[in-house]
Every structure is written in C-alpha cells, then in structure tokens.
C-alpha cells in the first residue's frame, strides 16, 4: 500500500485523501451529493482488499473448517485460523487459545454473562458497570442480576462525560465479582481508564471485562497491559465484515468456563450419554462458524497494521479536535463528551437546541451526509444527559477536514431551513 508517508517526526502519518481510493463505496452519490460517511461508530466502510477476500473465498476456497481432509477444507481451516493469529497479535500478542470467534461484541459479552456469569455470580454479589454503557454491555448484566439476585452498580459520569473516579472504593467494593466497562464510549467518545479499573477490580478479587467495540478500531490496544480478563470487539467497526466478533479471555479463566453453545466442533468425544469438551478456543465455537467473514477480517487487520494504529489515532485526534472546534462555533449546538482529544475518540454527539435530531439527520442526508440520530443503544446514558436522543458524527481514517467543513455548513443550512434564520 502506498498510503503511508513518513513525516519529519519519523512516525507514520496517514493521508485520508489517498486511502479513500481503497474504499469503493466512498464514490457513491447520495441524493445527488458526494457521500460523506460520518457513521463510523455504527460500522465502518470496507476496503477493496476485504471485499475481494470475501469474493475470493467463495470463488476459490470455500469448504467447512476443521472437519475435512481434502485440500479445500485444509485451506479454509488454515485461512480461518490465520485470522485468529492476526487478531491475537493485533491486541498485544496473546495466545490463539484465548481468541474466540463470535458474531460480534454483543455475542461476546453474552457468552461471558452466560458461561462465566451463571456459574460465578451469586445472590448478593456485585457487578459494576458505568453510566455510559452500550445496551450490549448492559442488558446481559441486568438479566443476570435479575436471575441471580446480584446487585448492579454504576460508576457515574461527570459533566464532561468522564468517569467519576473519586468514590470508586465504595462502588468497586469487596463483594464485586465483575467490573465491565466500555473502553471508549460510542456516544461521548470518552476513553476510560480501563487499566486502572482493572487494577481496582483485581484488588477486590473481581474480574474485568472491557467492551472494546469502539477502542480496538481506533487505538493501539494491548489487553495484557490493561490486564483485562475479557475483552470484546467487532470486526465490522474496523474495516472488516459484519458477523464476526472476538472475545479475548485469559486462558485459565476460559478453561474453567462451561461452553456457551453445544453441538458439533466444540466436543472432543461424544458417547450416547456423555460428551467431553474440545480444547480452547473451539470449546466455545459450536457449529459451523462464519468462515468467509472471519477469513476476510484478515485483510482488514493487515490494512490497519500497514497504516499503524498510532497513525490512525493521530489522524483521529486531529480531525476530532477540528470538528469540536468547528462545532463549538455554532452556539445553538450542545456538544457532548470530553473537550480534550487526549481523553476521547472520534464519536461526537451533539444536539441542536431547536431541531430534533431526527429532522437534522434527514436534512443532513439530503446533503449526502450520513450521521446517526437516536439514543445510540445507550438509553440510560441519554437520560443521564437529559436528552431523548442526539445526533452523532463519528470519524474514521478516510474522513477529511473538508468533510467536517461540509457538515458544519449543512448544520448552518438546517437552521435556515427549519428555523427561518
């Protein structure tokens, strides 16, 4: 890839204008305008290499994995396992036994709630979450707490949308069995101090789960450095296909967990009245997995590796800082989340005090600009912020400053359209 130029500071810098060519969808016109895709927190667009890989898999390699002795089956298995190795490297060099394929972050968290939670959470135990969790890291625990009689506690946020860390001892108290926190908020953009939280959790004998759906795509993540016990994320938010997610879990914890689904692939031996579980990671991968999408996740990881996650983060800091500055010029907007890009990623939620987010999103769409409007699957957080819904622009590697300018112009135009200004 010739998308990388070396800057004076000797670290890689990415040029969105060049790498846009790798993303065919960005040539689309929406309502007669150039598409400006600012809904990357929901899902990112895919480069040619990923699209081609999907096609090539079905055209050339398709077979079931782990169960055939023919050439295709071997090739498919090896491509499938090759992605697993790349994932293990991508998040800090963990063992492949610790990388479990799921359908996405949601299923990864449900797997933990089901397999680990139902065995280890008892009445009176405490599960600690935060006020900024996505429903994926909320509903499984609400259900588990209801079933077991466990107690849920939430680390509150402050006015800037950062976690209030001062009363933590009372929240992560001795009865805590699990602390489950998003690494980066999909609404506020806040980057949470998950390493510190893991330390606090471990000090009380609790485990630490990190929802990495928004962080792995945007930050250099090292799960060993964080010392997370579980770490979950989705391929589709980082250039990869939909339908593939990853649960990282520490080997000794996964060893002691019961399977999530039962059936083929996850067993070592089955008799009519008994079954033994397969070894890690396959114990948690019953049935035919999503092979094609897992295989096509590899070129997405290659793409990010080639850019370098530091360069990805730098670009995002730059564009987010610019967007925050430009949006703050519009006095009728309320912009949520931390103002310092050191503490945040590129998901920027805002409201216009007069225009409902739905109407704003429809208006922006008429200008070719894709943003999300709604509660972003974090209804308790919206309530906490005192709003029903917000509009959200979220950036990725191919977004440019010009696109931010166009967003700002369109927001001004919306005022003229709806408020006769």
């Amino acid at each position, binding site marked *: 890839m010739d998308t990388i130029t070396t800057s004076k500071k000797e670290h890689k810098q990415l040029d969105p204008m060049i790498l846009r060519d790798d993303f065919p969808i960005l040539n689309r016109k929406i309502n007669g305008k150039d598409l400006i895709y600012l809904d990357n927190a929901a899902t990112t667009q895919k480069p040619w290499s990923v699209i081609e890989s999907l096609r090539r898999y079905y055209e050339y390699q398709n077979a079931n994995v782990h169960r055939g002795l023919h050439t295709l089956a071997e090739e498919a298995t090896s491509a499938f396992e090759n992605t697993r190795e790349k994932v293990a490297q991508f998040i800090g060099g963990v063992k492949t036994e610790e990388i479990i394929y799921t359908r996405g972050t949601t299923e990864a968290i449900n797997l933990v709630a089901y397999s680990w939670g139902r065995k280890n959470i008892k009445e009176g135990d405490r599960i600690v979450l935060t006020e900024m969790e996505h429903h994926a890291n909320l509903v499984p625990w609400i259900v588990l707490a209801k079933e077991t009689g466990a107690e849920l506690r939430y680390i509150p946020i402050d006015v800037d949308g950062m976690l209030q860390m001062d009363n933590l001892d009372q929240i992560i108290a001795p009865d805590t069995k699990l602390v489950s926190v998003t690494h980066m908020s999909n609404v506020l953009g806040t980057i949470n101090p998950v390493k510190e939280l893991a330390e606090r959790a471990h000090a009380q004998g609790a485990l630490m789960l990190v929802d990495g759906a928004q962080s792995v795509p945007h930050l250099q993540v090292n799960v060993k450095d964080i010392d997370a016990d579980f770490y979950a994320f989705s391929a589709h938010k980082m250039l990869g296909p939909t339908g593939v997610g990853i649960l990282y879990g520490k080997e000794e914890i996964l060893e002691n967990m019961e399977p999530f689904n039962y059936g083929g692939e996850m067993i070592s031996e089955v008799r009519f009245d008994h079954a033994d579980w397969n070894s890690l990671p396959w114990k948690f991968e019953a049935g035919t997995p999503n092979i094609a999408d897992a295989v096509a996740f590899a070129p997405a990881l290659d793409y990010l590796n080639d850019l370098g996650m530091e360069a990805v983060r730098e670009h995002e800091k730059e564009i987010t800082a610019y967007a925050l500055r430009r949006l703050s010029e519009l006095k009728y907007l309320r912009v949520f989340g931390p103002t310092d890009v050191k503490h945040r990623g590129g998901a920027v939620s805002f409201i216009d005090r007069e225009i409902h987010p*739905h*109407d704003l999103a*429809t208006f922006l769409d008429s200008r070719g600009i894709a943003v999300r409007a709604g509660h972003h699957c974090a209804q308790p957080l919206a309530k906490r912020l005192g709003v029903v819904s917000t509009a959200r622009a979220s950036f990725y590697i191919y977004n440019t400053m010009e696109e931010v300018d166009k967003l700002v112009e369109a927001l001004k135009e919306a005022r003229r359209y709806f408020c006769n200004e």
Partner: protein
Amino acid sequence: MNEQLDELYRDIIMDHYRNPRGKRKLDKIDIRNEGKNPVCGDEIEMQVELEDDKVKDIHVGCMGCAISVSSGSILAEMVKGKSLSEVKKIAETVKALLRGEPVPDGVDVGDLEVLEGIKQFPVRVKCALLSWTTLVDALESHEKGKDVTLSTTE
C-alpha cells in the same frame, strides 16, 4: 435538491410542528396511553375524554421530531367527535398514505394528505405512525375493558 425535503417538511407540517393542536391537558380523562418509538426513544402521552363512545376531547403531548409532532397534531384535529371505528378508518388511511397505497373509501383525507411526502423517507414512517398507533391501541383496549399503558411502533 430541496424538492424531496420540501415534500417531507411541507408548510402545513411545519405549522403543526410549531403550534401543535391538542397541547392542553384534559381535566376529565377516560383513557390514557403512552407511545414509544424504540428506534429513537421519542415518547408521546395521550389523554382522551369520551362521550357516547366517541372522542370528545384529546390531549397529545409529544416530545419528538417534526414528523411525529405534526402527525399527532393532525390527529388531535381530526379525531374529535369520531367513534373507534371511524378513528381506525382514519388510521388505516394514514398508513395507506404513508405506504403509497390507495386510501379506503369514505374518509375525508383533509390535512392528512400532507403526510404523503413521508413515503419517500421510509425510516420516518414510524415517526408519523406513533400517535395513531397509540390512540388506536388505547381505544381498542378500552372497548375490550382492558387497560393499556404503553404502545410501541414496533
């Protein structure tokens, strides 16, 4: 460029949005219901006063987008003096308009016609339906002697 958008946000819609009818809360409430659009979290509160099984007065409290507020406002304007079966028929007409299907006979379409522009915007159809679903659910349950407390657009 604004043509489609102007179809959606017609003057009448924006007028209903800025000055929604049925804003006043009722003193005598025979039926109460709330509606929720789970997609966006928008909520609507509805109060109905009945007389001889017809809607005598109605309150529509909607914290929502231009489409859901104006649709609720048009509803408040249209359903007064109507029976359940008449309200249902109007609601069917709204659905037909939003889907671009022929409207049932014998309904005076009136302001409803402005909702037609929404059919170009499938994701916004639910916004327009919220108030209608909430009212029909409320009246139906009342007729069966059941309580409703919440309707959703799902």
